[in-house]
């Protein structure tokens, strides 16, 4: 069908074979069986490119870069050809009034028919003045665009849960999109997000007309349902007690478990060990760096300190940890108890000698 996604891909030099490989890979990412591949292919062959507006708030543009940095034609690059990106400040040609007109036209003429993607947190302190785009506060733009979208997708930890701007003490009272607009927001967190997950969500939406199954944090289960610790290639080293103790030590060179270096894999849910990053090249643990649970709400405080196993006990600073404090208090208690015993013994000796003096027993 002319004007369909498939024909657009063909015109961009993607072969039929690459197209089908893409459909298979996406089905796998979504956790669907290979029998679903024809359905995905058919949807992309028939459907027109959906309109997407991509808004930027308090962000670093990492999620856009994650999608744009793909170096070879791949799942990540193809996404830009599957959708009609009608507004994206990092890559669009117009600027100023012309850019804002693009946004305004899309959300009015295609009301109810565009997908809204949000990157970056929304500040709410002091009426939300800490982020203005085109002379409008982000909090207002966010609500306006969300109202007419057929799907709202938040990408990256900042848009999902507040991310870095929301780390203590959260100077601008930054919030995730969900907390601003309520309702169903599909969250694709990560820092940055993995573009293959984003692509899979869009294809799912095009194929089935609905968003995939989400967990209680609005994250698609196909990508965020499994604990990293349970799928990590270094898990056997964990079970065997083979831990890296210092950067660059023998264990580090042998690829041992990074648990002792503060890896937060045991509390992180994402598909990094499976689909990895940069078209399956690697992921932090494979490269020898512990996981920082970047797809978890408040990971900048909850998974912090990143190079320590245990979270710092509040109020005592990052240098003390629970064990040092515990040992200290236990030792103090033992000393106090010993002192108490000594005083009691002394008192009883005095009482006994006193009662002997007085002739009792």
């Amino acid at each position, binding site marked *: 069908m002319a004007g369909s996604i498939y024909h657009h891909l063909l015109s961009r030099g993607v072969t039929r074979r690459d197209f089908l490989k893409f459909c298979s890979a996406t089905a796998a990412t979504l956790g669907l069986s290979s029998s679903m591949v024809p359905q995905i292919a058919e949807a992309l062959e028939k459907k027109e490119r959906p309109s997407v507006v991509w808004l930027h708030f308090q962000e670093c543009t990492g999620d856009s870069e994650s999608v744009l940095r793909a170096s070879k034609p791949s799942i990540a690059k193809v996404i830009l050809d599957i959708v009609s990106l009608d507004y994206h400040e990092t890559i669009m040609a117009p*600027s100023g009034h012309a850019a804002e007109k693009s946004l305004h036209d899309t959300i009015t003429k295609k009301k109810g028919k565009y997908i809204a993607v949000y990157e970056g947190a929304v500040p709410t302190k002091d009426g939300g003045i800490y982020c203005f785009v085109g002379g409008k506060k982000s909090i207002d733009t966010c609500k306006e665009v969300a109202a007419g979208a057929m799907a709202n997708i938040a990408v990256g930890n900042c848009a999902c849960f507040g991310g870095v701007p929301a780390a203590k003490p*959260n100077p601008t009272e930054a919030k995730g999109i969900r907390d601003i607009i309520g309702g169903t927001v599909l969250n694709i967190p990560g820092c940055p997000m993995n573009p293959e997950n984003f692509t899979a969500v869009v294809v799912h939406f095009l194929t089935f007309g609905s968003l995939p199954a989400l967990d209680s944090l609005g994250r698609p289960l196909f990508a965020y349902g499994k604990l990293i610790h349970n799928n990590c290639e270094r898990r056997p080293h964990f079970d065997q007690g083979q831990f890296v103790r210092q950067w660059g030590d023998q264990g580090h060179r042998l690829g041992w478990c990074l648990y002792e270096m503060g890896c937060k894999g045991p509390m992180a849910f994402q598909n990094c060990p499976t689909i990895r990053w940069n078209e399956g090249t690697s992921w932090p643990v494979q490269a020898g760096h512990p996981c920082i649970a970047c797809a978890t709400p408040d990971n900048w405080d909850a998974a*912090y300190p990143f*190079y320590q196993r245990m979270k710092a006990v509040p109020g005592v600073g990052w240098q003390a940890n629970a064990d040092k404090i515990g040992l200290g208090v236990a030792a103090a208690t033992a000393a106090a108890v010993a002192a108490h015993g000594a005083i009691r013994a002394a008192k009883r000796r005095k009482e006994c000698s006193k009662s002997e003096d007085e002739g009792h027993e």
Partner: protein
Amino acid sequence: MAKIVVDPITRIEGHLRIEAQVEGGKITDAWAAGTMWRGIETILKGRDPRDAWTFVSRICGV
């Protein structure tokens, strides 16, 4: 005397607003404003210095 406002500047990272005062076909004054603030220095205070790079690298994702 006219004032030109270009906001947002696109094809950059971040949010930039440029205003220019034009008189007789020449720009006589101009302003540039970064229209977003997160407070990353404030966020870093009191944290373990060995983790600082993880926060600071998120200032810009490019």
